[in-house]
């Protein structure tokens, strides 16, 4: 087990975003997180990465409680993420974007090592030809790939992906799903991802947890989740019949 969250609660004013959520992530798995809009999926990511601190509960990551840490400290511990709405450094080149991740985690490398390391990750995500391109000139897919390269450059043990597939066409989705599998196989990075595209998350994830109104309502294998009455109800609404 790489991460274990116990009794996580977080509210914004009167709005309860997460209510006593328990879950764990096994080392070397792809764990999916689904739920209707406003279920608290992104809030979970923000709590795990230190952007918000939970009001209650603790997050055990490799035997250490990280629930009070700040984002950069959590990154140093080995959790990296991408954002739902991409947050590339638009006025910087792709190379510089990835360099930021390396500077933040491996400042002692020589400039040449940093550069070759950055290029390695850009190549991996398929941005080999855009090394000197300004991030603002990339397409949406390009920006998503760049965020992935940037996250990988921090040498994470756990990678959080927030709706990487949204806005992509079928081919691009296929490629992204392949990439996710390769990240697990090649780098041995555990993946926790939020996704709206059901077919993809059902296919790629080994295990899925379902969130609704800030509470965990189901957890299990994809095929069990697909047939879970409570999950169907959360998505489709209660039937009157």
């Amino acid at each position, binding site marked *: 087990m790489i991460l274990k969250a116990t009794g996580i609660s977080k509210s914004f004013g009167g709005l309860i975003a997460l209510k006593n959520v328990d879950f764990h992530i096994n080392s070397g798995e792809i764990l999916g997180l689904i739920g209707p809009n406003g279920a608290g999926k992104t809030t979970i990511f923000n709590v795990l*990465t230190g*952007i918000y601190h939970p009001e209650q509960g603790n997050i055990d990551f490799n035997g250490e409680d990280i629930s009070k840490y*700040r*984002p*950069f400290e959590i*990154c*140093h511990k080995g959790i*990296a*993420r991408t*954002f739902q709405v991409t*947050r*590339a*450094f*638009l*006025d*910087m080149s792709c190379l*510089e974007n990835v*360099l*930021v*991740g390396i*500077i*933040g*985690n491996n*400042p002692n490398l020589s400039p040449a090592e*940093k550069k070759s390391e950055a290029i390695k990750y850009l190549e991996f995500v398929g941005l080999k030809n855009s090394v000197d391109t300004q991030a603002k000139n990339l397409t949406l897919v390009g920006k998503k790939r760049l965020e992935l390269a*940037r*996250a990988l*450059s*921090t040498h994470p043990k756990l990678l959080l992906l927030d709706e990487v597939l949204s806005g992509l066409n079928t081919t691009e989705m296929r490629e992204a799903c392949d990439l996710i599998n390769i990240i697990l196989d090649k780098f041995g990075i555990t993946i926790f991802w939020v996704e709206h595209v059901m077919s993809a998350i059902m296919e790629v994830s080994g295990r899925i947890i379902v969130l609704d109104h800030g509470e965990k309502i189901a957890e299990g294998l994809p095929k069990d989740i697909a047939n879970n009455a409570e999950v169907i109800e959360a998505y489709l609404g209660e039937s009157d019949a």
Partner: protein
Amino acid sequence: MLKSKYILGLFILAIFLSFPIYIGKYWLHVSIISLFYVMMASSWNLLAGYTGQVSFAHAAFAGIGAYVSGIIAIKLNIPPTIGLFIGAGIASLFGLGLGMLCIKMGGIYLSLTTLAFSEIIRLIITNEYELTRGTMGLEVPNLIGFYSKTIYFYIMIAVSIIFLLIIYKIIKSDLGTSFRAISNDELAANSLGINVIRVRIVAFVISSAMAGFAGALFGHYLLLITPDISSLSQMFLILAMTIIGGMGSFFGPIIGAFFLETLSEYIRIYGEYHVLIFGIVALIIARFAPSGLDGIYQEKISPKMAKS
């Protein structure tokens, strides 16, 4: 291509270094003031242009440097050459404090807080009559012990070059990359393992130390320092120089400082209207060259030269 740039740079420097031979005392004085603004605008650009912290306290730091160096020279007989560094040190301490105060702030809130700080400093300088002689101005000793515009001109050039080299080193280093990452997207930089708070404060400390040093240096040239040095009009001039020259670019503030200082000498004859002309120039640049004079060069002239 690179070689020709070096030659051009050396050529400009050579012309510059020979200024005292053929330009009069008046224009030498203007050049010294311009160099002061080069230091101020470049170090402000490091903070505002690169890390995105638009501080209005930069002139106040120059005031702190100038008054600290001046007062300790008068009261404690500390030679101005040492006073410069003490002034810069005190200014950087204030920079540290102000930077820490602004940690949680961004955008307009940071600007307002630094603006308030700047006014507080100006009011203290104006009212602590015993120490600063208020608006009467404080007479301070000369840096080198005797008065020579030519020597002072060379000192200003030397210090400007050192400043610019330091700034250039910083923006090309990892720290500079972190600066730009933070100004692009603070949260993303934080999530990538950059200690955003530390980097932001470091930027504040470096730039305020430079402002303090520049202010002290300038004070020992003018021999009379008044609260004007830390006034907001001074601050807005620095801001205008950086923006008109090109914010977030290395050469921008240098070009802007010389351009505006020289321009203001030429339009001084129009009396009160010179502010109006200033405003029109700023308007035209903002409309037609939003990335400043350096931006025009980068976008229009440089690609053409590369083609031919």
